[in-house]
Structure formats: C-alpha cells, structure tokens
C-alpha cells in the first residue's frame, strides 16, 4: 500500500511540480479575489475563511474526476480490481494520496494565505484546523463521483450532481466552525465535532461506495 501511496504522489509531482503547486494555486486564487471584491481589507478578512475553504474545494475538484479514469485508461485499474488486497483499502490509499498532493499543501499554506487576506491569528488557526479536519471529507466524497464516472462512461452529469451537493454540508460546517471560533457568540465545538463526524463518516462511506461502483463497472 505504501508503494501505491508513493506512486500516486510521484505521479502528481511529475505531472505538475509537486507540493509547491497547491500553494501556488491557492495564492493565485486568493490574489484574484481582491480584484473582484476590491481592496477592502476589513471585508477581505471577513470572507477570508470562506475563500480559503472554497479554494480547498476547487483544488480538490480539479483532477479528482480523473482519479480512477486515468487508471482505467491505461489498464492499471484491472490489475487493482483483481488483486487480493481489500479493494477498499486500495481506494482509501488513493484518496489519501490525492489529499496529500492537493489539499495538504493548502492546509499548510493557509496561514500565509490568511496573512494575505488580513485575517486575525485566531481566524488563521481555526481555518487551518478546520481545513485539516474537513478537507479529507471532500476528497472522499469526490472519490465516489470518480468511481461512478468510471463505472458509467456516460454518467458525467451524475457525477457533478452527486459530488457537489454532498460537499455543501462539509463546507458549511467547516466555515461555520471557523466563524464560531473567531467571532462567537455561537460555540466552536459543535460544528467542529460535526465536521469531524462528517469526515469519519465519509472516510467509511466514500471508499466503500466507490468500491461498490467499481466492482459493478460495465466492462
């Protein structure tokens, strides 16, 4: 399994420059925002956490749909399906690799981004924490979509309908936990615990559902 993780990480590095990329991507997204909303620092610091979370969502979505398609197209998926390792584990590891390659750099870079968005220390810490805890859930949900995309070659629409709405709860609890930490009055813990629960839930459901979808591929 370690081998799979390493290979997927290597692939993502070869394809696009590695860990730096996530950060760069994010910096670019963030640099674009002030052009839209205007250089109003107070406003920026208020929407900062939301922007960081949206960036994480976008980063996770880019390339996620090809997670298994790329494997199918070159035939690797066949060998993975045949293999005796529990398939769920294989998929979990693939999700992990995708998360490490695209979301983790964002989590690590988020303090820097927070500074750019003029966020307070608490806000930065809270964003980082919620991102760390919540972003895997997005990847796991995306994995189901990616698996469905393989199973139904013509299921494109289905994938987007499946994935995006499901990520909304994660996004909402992540962002609201962050704001609770920053501003009060609502407490930080309840949404944060829900976020953890969501991640754990999808960590189980996601790979399992993806397994089911892949096992039923049409050819």
């Amino acid at each position, binding site marked *: 399994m370690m081998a799979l993780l390493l290979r997927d990480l290597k692939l993502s590095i070869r394809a696009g*420059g590695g860990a730096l990329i996530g950060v760069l991507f994010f910096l670019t997204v963030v*640099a674009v925002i002030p052009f839209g909303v205007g*250089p109003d620092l107070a406003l920026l610091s208020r929407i900062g956490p939301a922007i960081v979370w949206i960036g994480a969502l976008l980063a996770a979505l880019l390339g996620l749909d090809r997670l298994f398609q790329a494997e199918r197209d070159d035939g690797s998926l066949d060998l993975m399906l045949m293999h005796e390792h529990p398939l769920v584990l294989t998929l979990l590891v693939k999700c992990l690799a995708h998360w490490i390659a695209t979301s983790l750099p964002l989590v690590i870079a988020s303090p820097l981004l927070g500074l750019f968005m003029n966020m307070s220390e608490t806000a930065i810490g809270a964003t980082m924490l919620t991102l760390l805890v919540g972003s895997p859930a997005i990847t796991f949900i995306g994995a189901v979509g990616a698996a469905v995309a393989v199973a139904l070659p013509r299921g494109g629409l289905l994938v987007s309908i499946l994935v995006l709405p499901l990520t909304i709860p994660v996004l909402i609890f992540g962002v609201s936990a962050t704001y609770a930490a920053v501003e009060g009055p609502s407490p930080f813990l309840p949404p944060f615990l829900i976020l953890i629960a969501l991640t754990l839930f999808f960590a189980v459901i996601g790979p399992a559902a993806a397994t089911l979808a892949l096992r039923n591929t049409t050819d």
Partner: protein
Amino acid sequence: MSETSLAITKFSDLANPTRFLALAARIIPWMAGFTALCFIVGLYLSFTTEGDYQQGETVRIMYVHVPAAWLAMMGYTIMSLSAIGTLVWRHPLADVSAKAAAPLGAAFTLIALVTGSLWGKPMWGTWWVWDARLTSVFILFLMYLGLIALNRAIDDPSKAARVSAVLILVGFVNIPIIKFSVEWWNTLHQSASVLRLDGPAIDPEFLRPLLVMAVAFTALFFTLHIMAMRNEIWRRRVTAQRRMAARLASREGQP
C-alpha cells in the same frame, strides 16, 4: 569545428555552446569584479546622501527597491526575448537563457516585493494593499514560480523550453500592466519619476545613488545569469553523456 549539428552552424560563434562556455569563463571574473565595485560605491552613496525632508531616512529603501523592481521586469523581458529565440530559431542557447533567468527574476521580484512592503509600512501605514501595481508585481512573482514549476514538470528540456516559451510570451502582457498600472489606475504607489519620456523628475541628490545601485544590480543580474546559463549547459552535457553511456552499455550487452 568540433560541432557539426546543423541547427548550430547557422549561428554566430556565440551561439555555439562550447564557444559560449569559453567566453563565459573569460568574462565572468571581470563582471563579478565590476559588480562588487559598483556595489561598494552604490552602498557608500546610499548611506551618505541626505534623507528626504518628507520621507526621512526611509528614502534609502528606494536605492534597493527601485533597481530590484526594474530588474524584476527586465528579467522577464530577457526571458521573453529568449522565448522568441526558442520559437523562431529553435536555438538551444535561447532555451538555456530563458530557463536560467527564471529563478533570478523571481529572486529580484521577491526583493522588490519585500522592500516595497517594508517601505509601505512607514509610508502608507500598511504592509500590503491590493492596489494595481503591487498586485501586478505579485502576479509577476507567481508567474515566475509557475514557469519554474512548468520547466521542472517536463523532462525533455527542449520541449520544456518550447512550451514555456509560449507561456512566457503570453504572460508578457503583464509587464506593460506593471509599468503603467500607476497611470491607468490612480493608486497609492508612486508614478514613474526616473524612466519617463520628459526626463527624470527627481532630485539629483537621490538620482546619483539610485543610478549607481541600478547599475550594480543589473551587473549582478547579468553575472548570475551567465553563470546560471553555464551551469545549465553543463547540466545538459552531463545528462547527454550519461544517456549515451547507458545506450552504449545496453548496446554492448545486446548485440
């Protein structure tokens, strides 16, 4: 003539990597010496001239900030010229030049950004504002990093060079934006007072150290650029020889 590749013979002596190496070996010490000299004079001048009555001592930041900002733009311009060389003449040295200039340009852009915000804090009361000049320089920095990443992501060097060349040229639109942003959008940042059509509008007291520092920075840039080009040529030689060795070995093993 030791080299027989057709792509090369068309060009002048300089265009030949071997000639280039010989030339570089000869001029690098001189350039390094010149750079050091300029820096000594420039730094002496920057710290002995008087402060501005309005900006106080912080005006001294100008002597690093402005040359660095100019070089940030010049670095990109050099990359663009090299990119044209790559695309039009498919010239291997142009590939090398563009690739070597990217990290240097990024370094000078970083200096301009950081010294700018160090200047901004006392002058404007904030480290950073999202005004047009500042943001476009920031984008220049991102583009440098993106191009470095792109170059690393493609492992066939000549292909990498051709692909990045296209992007470099497209990205060149950012340079006029940086240059004229202060005039197009009325913002916090100073408008041009040295590089303008009707002559410099700046007190000679400040102009002298500024120009010496600008020459020093430029000399540094070119010294490092030539050194980096030389390194890159060496790097490619090493890989070419390694590959050839592998090929010969496998051929001997497999008649």
